């Protein structure tokens, strides 16, 4: 489809066709799903009225599995097969997991991403996450008794490319049409900012179960501009639990010998941590296989043993302020997100650093999902008057390996996305005909200290003297924050391109096959589905063309408009046939035939923006 909705940004071609759009917060500990109903974003409850779905999946053998509360209930008796906090493993290898020995799982090292050994064989973190997402999708389908048009999934702002790609794959595997990945603090800012009609510069401090993010945003008239972001994708409430568990073990001279004990210890630590948010002391209680522990812990002790974690988050806040060129006094308010911000010492430390009272008038568990739902609603075109615009940034610098294992930075962190940046390189040997490119992400100068994202080769460079070739490498980061890289030798025109996909070995075909295996809910005929999809796309294209003509026919000559109308008639005629290929061909022809019109409308839109006229009033 090649027509632009310049005149009514965000509006669906057919205003009556309301699309069901959902926002999902896929969290380390909890996941939630929300949707905008009657103009209000709300979290969708399950049949028992609970909005929170614990991010837990238990594999029970013979294809049976339990998700959420049911999985969690069996955690102590079946720890190896009950996967919790799987988000920590997304896009990660075994070497990346700091506390692997403390975990009750058998981790298998694989290229790109680890796997978990379960009673049902090896499971990739992508598959486990897809189970959680599919369960939420089911909840939405039950709620609306309809198909879901699309979903916005949130990711920690500090997730790197591999982690984002893994999340998108999981959503795809769960049968969701991903409208956009958005950053959790940005989602929180949308929900908070729209609710409170806030304007100005705000910080979002998001300490979840396994990740920490901070974002600094400027809010003005529906535009959410991220000025800088920072964080740690492996720091969260889980670490506070572990620190507390360690202190109790040391104080009581005990040790953990099996997976069940490890799991019980962490569960008790979490309960103790939560209790200490309301009271100043608590008796840590756990039943281990070699006897019980009953040990009194004071809030002061808990704060002392986790102080280093809080300090780490504050350093990230300071760095984000520096990146945004701001002083702490420039911040008007700090929005607290994530269950871990309930800890009083976290609240006071953040308030002290930013010299303002943390804003707590939102539910820290729900706010991210609500923001995602608002964005999903907008992206689906359900909100014709929506002026919402997100201008987010890339959290980590992207670069390429050069001589001596050094990183040449191509896209610096905190660039507004989408973005494309290029750098020229050359060959270093006479007659060199190929060049290996190694794409990395991170802030360090040495390649070994950064995350390796992809390797590819530019081949077929004509033999030249060293330094004569001119190889332009372009990094493109899309609105989801995902990277693709192009390389071209400009003298000869030889080129290569790669969509940076983490190499954990799941091809699109495999994902499609798994999709059918695991989440197959209804039998469907492949051809019938292709036909339905082709007709749907034809409808969309036709409606888009019609609304473009309605709005901007004056940009065309009479002949041009007639040509487009002829193509539209052909689409309608093709739709009556039963061959998907014919319908697709007619749709494609209309798409091609309207490209110039689309470009003209885009141009016109930009002109109107320059002239400062309100487009809606045209």
């Amino acid at each position, binding site marked *: 489809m090649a027509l632009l909705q*310049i005149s009514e940004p*965000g509006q669906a071609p057919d205003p009556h066709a309301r699309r069901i759009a959902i926002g999902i917060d896929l969290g380390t500990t909890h996941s939630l799903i929300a949707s905008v109903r009657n103009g209000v974003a709300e979290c969708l409850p399950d049949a028992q009225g609970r909005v929170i779905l614990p991010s837990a999946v238990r594999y029970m053998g013979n294809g049976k599995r339990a998700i959420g509360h049911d999985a969690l209930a069996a955690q102590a008796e079946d720890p190896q097969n009950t996967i919790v906090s799987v988000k920590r493993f997304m896009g990660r290898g075994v070497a990346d997991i700091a506390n692997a020995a403390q975990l009750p799982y058998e981790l298998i090292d694989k290229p790109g991403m680890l796997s978990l050994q379960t009673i049902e064989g090896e499971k990739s973190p992508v598959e486990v996450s897809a189970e959680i997402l599919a369960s939420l999708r089911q909840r939405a389908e039950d709620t609306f008794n309809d198909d879901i048009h699309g979903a916005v999934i949130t990711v920690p702002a500090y997730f790197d490319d591999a982690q984002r790609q893994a999340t998108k794959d999981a959503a795809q595997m769960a049968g969701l049409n991903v409208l956009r990945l958005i950053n959790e603090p940005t989602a929180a800012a949308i929900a908070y900012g729209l609710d409170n009609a806030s304007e100005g510069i705000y910080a979002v401090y998001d300490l979840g179960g396994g990740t920490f993010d901070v974002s600094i945003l400027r809010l003005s008239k529906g535009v959410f501009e991220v000025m800088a972001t920072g964080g740690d994708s492996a720091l969260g409430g889980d670490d506070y639990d572990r620190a507390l568990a360690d202190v109790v073990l040391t104080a009581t001279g005990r040790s953990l010998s099996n997976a069940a004990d490890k799991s019980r210890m962490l569960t008790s630590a979490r309960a103790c941590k939560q209790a200490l948010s309301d009271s100043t002391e608590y008796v840590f209680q756990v039943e281990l296989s070699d006897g019980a522990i009953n040990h009194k812990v004071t809030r002061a002790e808990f704060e002392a043993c986790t102080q280093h974690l809080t300090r780490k988050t504050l350093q990230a806040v300071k760095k984000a302020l520096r990146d945004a060129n701001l002083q702490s006094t420039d911040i008007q308010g700090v929005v607290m997100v994530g269950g871990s911000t309930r800890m009083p010492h976290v609240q006071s430390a953040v308030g002290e650093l930013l010299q303002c009272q943390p804003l707590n008038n939102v539910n820290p568990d729900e706010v991210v999902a609500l923001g995602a739902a608002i964005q999903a609603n907008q*992206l689906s075109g359900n909100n014709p008057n929506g002026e919402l615009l997100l201008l987010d940034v890339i959290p980590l610098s992207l670069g390429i390996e050069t001589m001596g294992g050094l990183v040449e930075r191509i896209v610096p962190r905190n660039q*507004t996305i989408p973005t494309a940046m290029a750098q020229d390189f050359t060959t270093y040997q006479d007659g060199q005909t190929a060049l290996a490119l190694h794409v990395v992400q991170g802030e360090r100068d040495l390649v070994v200290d950064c995350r390796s994202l992809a390797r590819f080769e530019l081949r077929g460079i004509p033999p030249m003297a060293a330094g004569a070739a001119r190889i332009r490498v372009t990094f493109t980061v899309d609105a989801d924050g995902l990277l693709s890289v192009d390389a071209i030798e400009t003298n000869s025109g030889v080129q290569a391109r790669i969509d940076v996909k983490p190499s954990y070995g799941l091809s699109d075909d495999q994902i499609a096959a798994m999709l059918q295996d695991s989440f197959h809910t209804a039998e469907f005929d492949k051809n019938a589905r292709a036909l339905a999809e082709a007709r749907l796309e034809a409808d969309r294209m036709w409606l888009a063309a019609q609304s473009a003509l309605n709005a901007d026919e004056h940009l065309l000559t009479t002949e041009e408009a007639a040509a487009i109308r002829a193509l539209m008639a052909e689409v309608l005629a093709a739709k009556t046939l039963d061959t998907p290929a014919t319908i697709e061909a007619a749709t494609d022809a209309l798409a091609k035939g309207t490209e110039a019109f689309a470009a003209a409308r885009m141009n016109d839109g930009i002109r*109107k923006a320059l002239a400062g006229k309100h487009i809606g009033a045209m």
Partner: protein
Amino acid sequence: MVSSGAVSGPLTLASSDFELFGIPPRFQLDPSQLELQWKQLQKQVHPDHFSSQGAADKRLAMQWSVRVNEAYQRLKNPLRRAAYLCGLNGAPIRAEDNTAMPAAFLMQQMQWREDLEEATDASAIEALQQQMAQEKRQLLQQCADTLDQQLDWAQAAQTVRALMFIERFEHDLDNRLERLDNN
């Protein structure tokens, strides 16, 4: 709202940053106006407004959105804006092969670097940062004069190169401060 410098021909991805933003090709500009214009343009072209459209629209929106961001980043940053203006007027900066700087400036550079070596605490580094900020203000004022009044592009290019030295040094100061902070 459109300034007199707005172009008359059709805008393309190859239009200059100034044309794209509908402002005259001058060094001095109003940053808040620039930011407003950026958001206006993104409201028109951002891929979010095309997410339920077809692949061709998405591609076009992506290209325009990238282009608008590129232009904004360049116009927003005074140093990059100055460099861009020099390039547009036939005096490219060529930072990689033109490093000839006045001796006095190079001496000054060395002095600053020595001061950084000797700095042991945050306050010493912050003092250097303030010195740099002041130096930068002066050089940017020079840029404004040479670019907007005297139209001396070669002289402006020389000032831009000096500013690039300072920016690199400021980056080193930031890094040093961050290391101190983390210890």
